[in-house]
């Protein structure tokens, strides 16, 4: 009997000990698990490939778009395939087809021709590849998002800056871009709406110079001759304003007329530095490229985006 009960006593004791050990290990396990769970979140994301089709890489503007896109792609771990459309709509369509065949996960297209590119976009739609347009929109096909400068806001910014610099009063000229282009329409609308809030400023002439520097020069020379009382000029792009400055210089009026351009090209920046140009509304091509790639990345990772993503503009002055 004694042996038996002693055995039972030992057994009881060992059970309690085991429970104690379980308790201790249970607690330490919990600590371990906490550490594990915080580390196990790291997953290797699959490498995405995004095609970037630019209309013309001889234009520094698009080179900037490419650079910006490349930095974002590097940051996000995305492989970026860049194609130069060389202002050739047919070539660009071929490039789209090549990229679809590669394949890529998404396409960022800066169309050479908004109409001609439509079949290529449709082909991409058929291959289930999301398409984004940059700077210039396409007339058809399913486009997830259009990424472009906020031209309406840019026009308004130009109007505001100009008004400030002419004392909120005066007669001004607006040199318009190619009629029917979205850039010309939006920039003009933003500018006109803003100017309308200044009762003492009057737009005396609105005339197109087709985004061209030489045409801008001739058109403005004629306008200046017709309206010598004008105090300021706004052009829908820097080329036209640079032409207008040339015309004003030839007419000897460069000093008393304020010029505001749009785009922030190198010539315009030089003109600002020399004091010929008051300001230019600079687009942010690099930012466009960055946002393009980031938007594609977001969509590919299951996010939703707006169909139009405006890119801010900046007033560049001396």
């Amino acid at each position, binding site marked *: 009997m004694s042996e038996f009960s002693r055995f039972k*006593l030992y057994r009881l004791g060992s059970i309690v000990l085991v429970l104690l050990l379980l308790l201790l290990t249970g607690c330490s396990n919990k600590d371990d698990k906490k550490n594990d769970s915080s580390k196990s979140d*790291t997953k290797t994301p699959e490498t995405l490939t995004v095609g970037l089709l630019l209309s013309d890489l001889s234009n520094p503007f698009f080179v900037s778009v490419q650079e910006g896109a490349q930095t974002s792609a590097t940051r996000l771990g995305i492989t970026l395939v860049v194609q130069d459309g060389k202002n050739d709509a047919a070539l660009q369509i071929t490039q789209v087809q090549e990229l679809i065949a590669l394949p890529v996960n998404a396409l960022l297209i800066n169309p050479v021709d908004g109409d001609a590119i439509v079949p290529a976009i449709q082909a991409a739609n058929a291959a289930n590849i999301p398409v984004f347009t940059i700077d210039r929109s396409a007339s058809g096909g399913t486009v997830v998002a259009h990424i472009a400068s906020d031209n309406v806001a840019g026009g308004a910014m130009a109007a505001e800056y100009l008004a400030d610099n002419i004392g909120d009063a005066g007669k001004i000229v607006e040199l318009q871009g190619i009629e029917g282009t979205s850039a010309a329409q939006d920039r003009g609308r933003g500018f006109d709406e803003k100017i309308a809030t200044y009762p003492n400023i009057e737009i005396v002439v609105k005339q197109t110079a087709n985004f061209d520097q030489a045409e801008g020069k001739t058109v403005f020379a004629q306008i200046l001759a017709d309206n010598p009382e004008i105090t300021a000029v706004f052009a829908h792009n820097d080329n036209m304003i640079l032409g207008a400055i040339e015309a004003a210089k030839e007419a000897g009026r460069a000093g008393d007329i304020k010029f505001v351009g749009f785009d922030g090209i190198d010539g315009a920046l030089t003109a600002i530095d020399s004091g010929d140009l008051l300001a230019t509304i*600079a687009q942010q091509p690099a930012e466009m490229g960055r946002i393009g790639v980031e938007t594609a990345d977001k969509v590919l990772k299951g996010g939703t985006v707006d169909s139009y993503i405006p890119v801010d503009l*900046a007033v560049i002055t001396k």
Partner: protein
Amino acid sequence: MRLRFSIRQRIAFIFTLLVLLLLVISAVALLFTRSAENTVTDVRRGSDSLTQLDDFRIRWLALSGTLNSLLLTREEALIDNQLIPQQTDFENRLAALRTSNVEEIKNHPEETQTLVSLSDELLTHVNEIPSAVQAGEWTRAQSILHTDIEPLQGRFIDAVNELHDLASSDVDQNLSDSTTTQDRFRTFVFAISIGGVIVALIIAALTTLSITQPLANLTAAARAIREGDLSKRAEVTSRDELGDLAQSFNNMTEQLQTSISSLESRVQSRTRDLEAVFAVNSQIGTLLEVDRLLQDVSDLIKERFNLYHAHIFMFDPEEDALILTAGAGHVGRQMVTEGRIIKVNSPRSIVARAARTRKGVVVNDVTEAPEFLPHPSLPNTRSELAAPLIARGRILGVLDVQSSDLNHFSADTLSLMELLASQVAVALSNATLYEVAERTSRRERTIGNITQKIQTAVSIDEILQSTIRELGKALRVPHTAIELRLTENISLSPSDEEYDVAEQGV
């Protein structure tokens, strides 16, 4: 409840339990302390990581401020005086962040990587500024600031904030985890303490009860026994030392009770035996006739000693044998009538042995005794006692008693029977003497009568007749004759018929 544990084991068990309880509480308390330490570490590390991120952001904002004032004031000196040192400072912070070991930052490698990449991009564009400025391209520098650095700065601030928020929520999570753990430990310690105290109290009460209860039982039993109630027993409720003690106590009481009651019964039976001896004695004292004496003694012994049978053999020195003379009851008388003689030298007789050895013989199991001589009229005999009747040094016979019970005769009974036998022997001897004396006196009286009658007789014939008649009467013989011889061979012998009258007349 039958406890299997001894008191020693119970006490050892309670101590073990207490030690284990203490161990558990200590262990939990240790864990609690460790958890609290972890909390402090977590908070410190979390605050380090947040500080690091805040620092990083502040360095950038300082650098960004310098860029803005550089482009506003167009003082090239700012580049060397402020911009370059601040840039270096920012780059150092960036390098520190890149290799950060802080858990809250390491835990979010993607966000950290984004922040580092953005910082690199920013630095690339920041590096473009001095060259543009030195080339006098202030507007280009401005353009770089507005179109490249500012959009990137927005992303940078977002990324810093995101990482900051993640680290901050990590810290919150750690804190909340620690608090939860500590709350759990606290509850656990509380529950274990309360539960342990309750369990300890219950076990202590049970143990105390398990010790005091049997003790109280034992004390009550001892008190009852002290007051004379020997039938009282202590209740055995446990198998421990106290149970053993109670068991021993009960055994002791049992033995005491048994020995007292057996002593009482022995005294009782002894008294009864002595009474029987006295009764037999007083009876035999009044009996002088031998045959009646023996018969009455047999009957009395059988009756008073409550025996199966009792009978008496008388010793016949001429035959050197023992003759059954008297037996109790009907069977005894019948056996006497049948006649039973046992030679003294017969080996197969307890009675003969008693006569030979002149000592009492007890056989308490006749079936085991080879010398037992069974008798068909006494089939139930199981034990037998034979005591010699000895008076004045002479053996007179043997008193033989039988019982239908095994082991009926004790040494006490034997000595009683021997005593009784010697009394019987003395009485027998007295009775014999009395008979002899009476016979002598009667004979002398007969002789006197005869003499008287002879003296009054007038003739020889009358003398002879009277003599024969009186002799026959006195001698109680059926036939008496006197033969007269004359010297001249004259026979005066009367015929037998002539002198038979005397006998007839008796």
